[in-house]
């Protein structure tokens, strides 16, 4: 079984079918970029993976355990154990505005695991160092720029030692200059062989850092392949059309 195996995923909001039979696999260390226009179902797909949405049918297996099998979910405890292997970075970052950067990073670990105070503090500093924001450790989210907030959100997710990182990288929320600093952190993670699934509008990232690109259209995966296949030799006119529109 693959590291992450998704098959026949379906999801509807009322009468609107958002996901129609989505299937793909991810191997350990893969960096998968999911691209597609708004409303293509790529965000919903990612939210289903970490159980922020309930699927209507299909299966998701992560590290040989079923988060959902043929539309049926296991016990809550099992779901929590499976999703705890995943970290997520939201489009709007969702930092806790009432807590300092340090507490944003430390509190979730403290509340969910047994942690030594000194080790926790050291780990917090290490993660902030990694994203280049150690000097902001005592700042509050409202004092940070968009790019800094996103990097803190990455550090916060990394604190829980995930095997898989899920990203909403609509860098439209950031100004172009700040995008670079976030992308360089993500490239660093890719070099460390973190398994990542990235929903993105950032074609440069998909091209350079991803080893697999999935193009979604109308709730289906229209095309999947290496960046070279998708960007230089797209099979479908729809893919080519979408890529042209993002240039």
């Amino acid at each position, binding site marked *: 079984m693959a590291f992450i195996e998704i098959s026949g995923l379906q999801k509807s909001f009322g009468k609107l079918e958002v996901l129609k039979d989505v299937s793909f696999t991810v191997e350990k260390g893969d960096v998968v970029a999911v691209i597609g226009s708004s409303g293509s179902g790529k965000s919903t797909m990612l939210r289903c993976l970490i159980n922020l949405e309930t699927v209507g049918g299909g299966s998701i297996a992560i590290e040989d355990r079923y988060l959902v099998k043929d539309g049926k979910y296991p016990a809550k405890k099992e779901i*929590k154990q499976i999703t705890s292997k995943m970290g997520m970075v939201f489009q*709007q970052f969702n930092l*806790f505005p*009432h807590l300092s950067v340090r507490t944003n990073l430390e509190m*979730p670990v403290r509340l969910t695991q047994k942690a030594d105070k000194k080790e926790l503090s050291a780990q917090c500093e290490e993660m902030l160092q990694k994203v280049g924001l150690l000097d902001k450790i005592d700042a509050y989210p409202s*004092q940070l720029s968009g790019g800094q907030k996103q990097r803190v959100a990455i550090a916060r997710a990394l604190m829980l030692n995930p095997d898989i990182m899920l990203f909403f990288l609509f860098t439209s929320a950031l100004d172009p200059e700040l995008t670079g600093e976030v992308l360089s952190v993500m490239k660093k993670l890719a070099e460390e062989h973190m398994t990542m699934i990235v929903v993105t509008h950032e074609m440069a990232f998909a091209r350079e850092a991803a080893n697999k690109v999935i193009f979604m259209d109308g709730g289906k995966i229209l095309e999947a392949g290496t960046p070279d296949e998708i960007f230089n030799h797209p099979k479908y006119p729809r893919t080519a059309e979408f890529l042209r529109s993002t240039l």
Partner: protein
Amino acid sequence: MDYILQILGPMLQGALVTTALFAIVIVLSLPFGFGITMLARCRFRPLAWLARGFIYIIRGTPLLLQLLFIYFGLPLIPGIGQYLVFDRFTAACVGFVLNYAAYFAEIFRGGLLAIDKGQYEAAQVLGLSHPQTFFRVIIPQMLRVALPALSNESVTLVKDTSLLYAVSVPEILHAAKTAVNRDVTIVPFFVAAVIYLVMNTVLTLLFKYIEKKFNFEREM
């Protein structure tokens, strides 16, 4: 000046009653109001309706009517009335607590509505349990939003305590009115006004201090 000192004694005693009522009402109606907010959001519909009905009735009728009803009206209910006889001060406390709980419930509801859905999602993804999310993430942010309205409502409460006059509890206004009638002078009214102002000034400063403590929206 001598006259002011002379009437100050009974008026400060009145102020003590006002302060006692204020303290009791704040301490009881804040948690009670929060409970009502929670009930109104409850998935078990009848409980939610009960909470909303309570807020609807309390906010839609005058506090003075509620006080009179509790003190004079409840004992007249056939059958159970004899068990619902309160002394004046207790009746006033019950009325004020019920009334302010309804208002606080609405303030808390507004505070909860102001919190972005993403905060709940982030907490879930980070593995926090529902109670952890509620106490560590939601409540502190809700209080931040609710504080200015709570401050406003508390100032109103200080002034509303003058309604105790209607059920003849000897508070500030009662003492002032007695002195005005007895000595035929309006000085006691001014003294009463100053006492209310002093109390509200202290209260406003206290809330300013608390708001500062909760202010995490610092600018860059």
